[in-house]
């Protein structure tokens, strides 16, 4: 039977594996989406919307050649969250985003995963720019973007329909 075949690469860092998301990851992802921690991303959403977001971030791989990885702790196998490269139609340029489970906070996990995802993107899609869209006041994400070497770009175009009060653009630096 003919068809289309797509690939999701697996990346390894010192402490983490970035791998294709699976159905087993969804309950933790949905619990996050239903919690106040999702305020800065989608707002608190139910399982139906959460599944759509979870599946769409995976589908990005076949549409764009980049998409979401689940972050897994190499030592324990624990699901730590998601690192996401996406370029939906209402974004002016590709975005690096992160979703971290509460119990994985404070360990540098998002930083370690984001470095790997950013460097993979540069190596494989180096002709494209990369930003992170961050809600002003989301201090954890602002700090992570800064630690990644990204800088606030006040002149960058915003996602359709968004204002500077809602979204700040952090531009990632090109890898050497």
């Amino acid at each position: 039977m003919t068809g289309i075949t797509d690939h999701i690469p697996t990346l390894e860092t010192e402490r983490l594996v970035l791998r294709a998301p699976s159905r087993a990851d969804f309950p933790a992802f949905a619990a996050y989406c239903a919690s106040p921690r999702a305020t800065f991303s989608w707002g608190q959403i139910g399982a139906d919307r959460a599944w759509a977001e979870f599946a769409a971030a995976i589908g990005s791989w076949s549409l764009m050649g980049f998409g979401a990885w689940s972050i897994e702790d190499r030592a324990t196998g624990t699901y730590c969250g998601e690192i996401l490269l996406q370029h939906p139609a209402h974004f002016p340029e590709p975005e690096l985003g992160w979703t971290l489970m509460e119990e994985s906070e404070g360990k540098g996990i998002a930083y370690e995963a984001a470095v790997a995802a950013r460097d993979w993107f540069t190596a494989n899609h180096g002709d494209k720019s990369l930003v992170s869209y961050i809600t002003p006041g989301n201090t954890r994400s602002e700090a992570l973007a800064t630690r990644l070497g990204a800088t606030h770009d006040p002149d960058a175009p915003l996602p359709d329909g968004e204002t500077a009060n809602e979204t700040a653009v952090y531009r990632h630096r090109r890898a050497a």
Partner: protein
Amino acid sequence: MTVTFSTPTLETERLILRAPALTDFDVLADFYASPRAEFVGGPQSRELSWRNLALEAGHWVLRGFGRWTLVEKTTQNPVGIVGLWHPEGFPENELGWDLFDGATGKGYATEAAIAARHYAYDTLGWTTLTSLIAIGNDGSRRVAERLGATYDSDFTHERFGPMQLWRHPGPEALT
């Protein structure tokens, strides 16, 4: 190391059923922005239309099955989306169909759904299949009737509201 996933291509007399693709976006966004999307959560923004297209592709990865974009052989245009669907919140595996503007009245939904149903029974080994039909979606109900499906029960969807669950003839009834 990579994870590889595949979406098969099916062919009927007048249609190619292939994986959802980036090139489908404009016509899909037009569909979701139109009154025709009233029974599938629409009208919806381009942002949500993109999410829906990516969701179609991601469904294949998560479930191992999904919906295909229908391409009209004579024009090579995408004319609809039909296939096997089971997002979170659906009671059972579903056979679903959405036709874009200008593609109705030609029997395309039925033609594609028959191919998708054969794939479910013959390739995936499924033994039953349902279709959720929104109250008042008479066009969709007529497709279900043409496919030999019958009313099974009522179902209320978190977002789409009250719907009817229709059940298709099983594989033994179709051979």
